[in-house]
């Protein structure tokens, strides 16, 4: 069913990993719509996944996490795959926006996080801040790039390409409030079926004030390479401690310098002046 897209309303993704089949149609659709080049055809040898990571030219990535104990069997009786179509989380409290010195990273009228490529100067401060390994420099454009939540498509009233391409509705697009309702219902259904490991990640404000691209996971967030709620902290947490540490050191440094001056004078009083110690 088509979603009416209205500027001023918050939109996002709900990715239900329990129905992801790892087809990577989302990756292909994203690359096609956003005109991103294909990845090198290398062989990573790590899992069935050959894409590796999200990066400056891969804005959707189906993670394939293997060798996970299969919870539906007895402990140690089987192994399972976890599949998850990863993407920028469009955090409510976005670490990247927090540290951007150029104002290139903004919130759009759809409450998504967007990098203005013509404003970005490639300082990479956002890369060291993003706790999801999402942002990267696109070597072709020399600016930081990531998922735009298909900003151009939203402006044209179309849903993002990845959500449209997903054959199992693992990626759902819509107004955040509706998506959260859908997600809660899905989690409750899975729990009722005995699938207790199903858990929602980022649907509430515990992780970066709420993620606009949130997930239903089948294991702990850390297994998917996502920081848990305890570790979801903003870079700015270190401003106060860092500056305070510097200020205390500055005071101690001044104190040390004053001591050095005083001790030097004391030494001069105790030692006779050398005969050629004048100015040049």
């Amino acid at each position, binding site marked *: 069913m088509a979603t009416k897209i209205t500027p001023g309303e918050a939109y996002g993704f709900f990715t239900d990993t329990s129905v992801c089949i790892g087809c990577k149609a989302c990756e292909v659709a994203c690359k096609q719509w956003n005109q991103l080049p294909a990845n090198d055809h290398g062989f990573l040898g790590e899992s069935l996944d050959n894409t590796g*990571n999200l990066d400056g030219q891969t804005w959707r990535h189906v993670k394939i996490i293997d060798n996970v104990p299969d919870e539906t069997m007895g402990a140690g009786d089987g192994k399972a795959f976890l599949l998850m179509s990863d993407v920028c989380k469009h955090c409510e409290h976005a*670490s990247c926006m927090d*540290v*951007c*010195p*150029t*104002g*290139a990273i903004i919130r759009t009228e759809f409450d998504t996080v967007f990098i203005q490529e*013509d*404003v*970005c*100067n*490639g*300082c*990479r401060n956002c*890369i*060291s*801040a*993003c*706790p*999801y*390994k999402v942002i*990267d420099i696109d070597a072709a454009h*020399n600016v930081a790039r990531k998922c735009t939540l298909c900003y151009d498509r939203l402006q044209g009233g179309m849903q993002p390409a990845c959500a449209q391409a997903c054959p199992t509705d693992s990626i759902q697009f819509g107004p955040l409030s509706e998506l959260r309702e859908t997600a809660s219902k899905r989690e409750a259904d899975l729990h009722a079926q005995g699938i207790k490991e199903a858990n929602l990640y980022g649907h509430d404000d515990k992780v970066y004030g709420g993620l606009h691209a949130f997930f239903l996971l089948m294991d702990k967030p*850390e297994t998917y390479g996502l*920081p*848990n709620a305890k*570790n979801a*902290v903003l*870079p*700015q947490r*270190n*401003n106060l*401690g*860092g*500056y*305070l*540490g*510097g200020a*205390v*050191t*500055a005071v*101690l*440094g001044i104190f*040390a*310098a004053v*001591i*050095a*001056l005083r*001790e*030097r*004078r004391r*030494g*001069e009083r105790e030692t006779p002046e*050398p005969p*050629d*110690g*004048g*100015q*040049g």
Partner: protein
Amino acid sequence: MPLAAAEHFVRAPEWTWYVLFYFFLAGLAGGCYFIATLLRYWGTPGDEPVARLGFYVALPATLICPILLTLDLKKPLAFWHMLVNTTPGEFGLNFNSRTPMSVGVWALLIASVFALVSFVDALARDGRLRHPLARRLTAVLDGSAGKAWSVVGSALYLFIAGYTGVLLAVSNQPVWSDTWALGGLFLASGLSGSAALLLLLTHYRRGTEPSRGFLEIGERLFAALELALLVVLLLTLLGDGTLDTALAFPWLLLWLVALAGMLPGLRGLAVGGLRATAAGGAASQRTVAWAVGPSLVLIGVLALRAAVIFSAQA
């Protein structure tokens, strides 16, 4: 294994050589300007040659900094976007107090004005610049106006020497974001390196002998402060579970070189306490042996920053 206090799955920003040398020069520029101010206004008349030396070092070191920063950008021609917001419809000056990168760019810009004025003033006082405007500047800066000018400049420069550590900490990068001690450590290391650099340079300028004792004792105390902060840094990393990352091979070698850079000062403190040696206070001849200590300190200052920068991004 228990989770680190802030376990993230972050990508390295690939800040490497340009950033390393920027951090190094920012530390030295900051320390030299501060020491120059202290010697001119709180030292003796005999300290004036070294005070001028400090101002002579601060300006070129400061001017190289933005060049390095610009070269490090992926779009160097857009360097001015740090200062001016080019978002359509939102044209104006950029300042983001939440990120030390933005605060630091402005501090560097403003401090460079202080460095330029102090540099020109030093040239005029040395008689190397005889332009009437320079003489007028010197006249204006005589007395309390000059003191106020240099004190404000010193505050800015102490900030510049240390904020680079805070810049790293305000991230989600392992090691960098797991400690609050980096700003202080970089500042203490910058002060130590500046005292060593000026001590080294006193052998290339006549009349600097009276200040050598101060520089020598100062370097020892700054090294002790640096060591204390290094211990704090390692303890905070231990507490957050990222000490292994920081000390992994080959970065451990850089940490050892950084530690070796503190040894001349710490050894001087252990052996001579707060008394200047005869060599530091009175020697006037340039000897290779005498230059070893200060050179080692400077190599240590560089190695410390390299250890911090590279170990977290490995």
